């Protein structure tokens, strides 16, 4: 059982990395990854919501009639998202302020719904959690990696500590949307390139 758990976890991490391979959850990646601390906050919130909702969805998967499966999944996901939103507003106000509109958009983050629809609703709870953790961590790694690059070149800082000398004006392209698109394109190409070595 443990081996299977590890298999799905690793699969979510690299084999089917949500952002780079499955192309889902991009909205939040591009928008939030301007600051590394936003990425970590977002990543943690996504991992929590994804794991909880995958667990609950796979628990109730046999009682969900097909006609209303989407609304039921989405109500479960939005409940956990709202909980994260309220808790963050109450106990972590600075982070909640920084992430603004993106917390409600977690519920719309395609990763959670896609995994619920494609995976959690078919697999037993333990595997669903494994996949959710793998996906969540995979998502956080990618978003943080992009966040580091964007913050470093955009503001010359990491976690708001200046890294580059004061004179560094900051590359605007990295902050605006086009830079983010480019960055995602490059990282997928890099992933393909590195996986190619593994495959052949």
């Amino acid at each position, binding site marked *: 059982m443990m081996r299977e758990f590890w298999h799905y976890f690793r699969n979510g991490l690299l084999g089917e990395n949500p952002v780079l391979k499955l192309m889902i959850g991009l909205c939040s990646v591009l928008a939030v990854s301007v600051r590394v601390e936003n990425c970590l906050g977002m990543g943690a919130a996504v991992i929590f919501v994804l794991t909880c909702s995958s667990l609950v969805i796979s628990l109730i998967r046999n009682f969900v*009639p097909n*006609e*209303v499966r989407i*609304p039921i999944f989405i*109500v479960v996901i939005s409940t956990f998202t709202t909980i994260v939103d309220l808790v963050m507003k109450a106990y972590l106000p600075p982070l909640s302020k920084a992430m603004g509109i993106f917390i409600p958009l977690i519920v719309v983050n395609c990763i959670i719904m896609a995994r619920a629809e494609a995976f959690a609703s078919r697999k037993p709870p333990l595997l669903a959690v494994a996949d959710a953790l793998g996906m969540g961590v995979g998502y956080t790694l990618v978003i943080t990696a992009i966040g580091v690059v964007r913050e470093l070149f955009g503001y010359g800082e990491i976690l708001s500590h200046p890294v580059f000398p004061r004179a560094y004006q900051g590359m605007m392209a990295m902050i605006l949307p086009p830079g983010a698109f480019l960055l995602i394109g490059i990282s997928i190409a890099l992933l393909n390139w590195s996986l190619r070595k593994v495959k052949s």
Partner: protein
Amino acid sequence: MNILIPTVLVGALGLAFGLMLSFLAKKFAVPVNPLVQEVERVLPGANCGACGFPGCSGLAEKIASGEAPVNACPAGGPKVWAELTRLLGQEGGNWEVKRAVVLCQGGKGVAQVVAEYSGVASCKAANLLPGSFKGCRFGCLGLGDCVRVCPFSAMHIDPESGLPVVDWEKCTGCGKCVAECPRKILALVPRKEQVTVACVSPDSAREVRKVCARGCIKCQVCVRTCPEGAITFENGKIVISREKCTLCGLCIEKCPTHCIIRVGRTTALLEVRG
């Protein structure tokens, strides 16, 4: 108190939406024949279209209604066909499994290239130019139309030779690449070890020699050397009959342009390129 109001409110909303959806689902229900669904689940689901029907669901309807034979889906292979016969309650038959093979060795350094082609990267487009960029008008252009069309990614262009290579493990014999190739250098052959002529050019010896080092020059050396008489020369083409051939490999050595190759088991071009 302010726990009750939201709960009741959202509950009412849920009830309203639930009723609406389930009622509409019933009214707009699409009549689905369960047998078709079962057949569709057995089919590989690659929607490759090799069977000639619009995707697997199209084929599933035809198989369920008996209009299509059980082995109409080449991609499925014997495993699926056996399952389908059990499902439809028919008796099992033995079926011939086919695989694709590349009948051209005119790759880099073998076939003459007469022009530098930088147009649209597709064999069909390149083939529109009269004679295209290779000396031989029948040889493979190597721009990968077949690779792109293969739904099972069983083909890739070998970087050294620039020729397509078929991986028989992944190939399901669906024949899409054979249809796609504008130069018709791909063919479907039974999946067993065999010897075949890797050239489709009908040109005479003088023209073939001018444009390709490994083209078939119809010298008929192979016809004479074959101990079993399996090789014959019919209307301008060398034909090797699979029944008579005992895979002795004599013709492969004797052929002056190494045009005859051994094909089978794993990759299409087993023969070391001479």
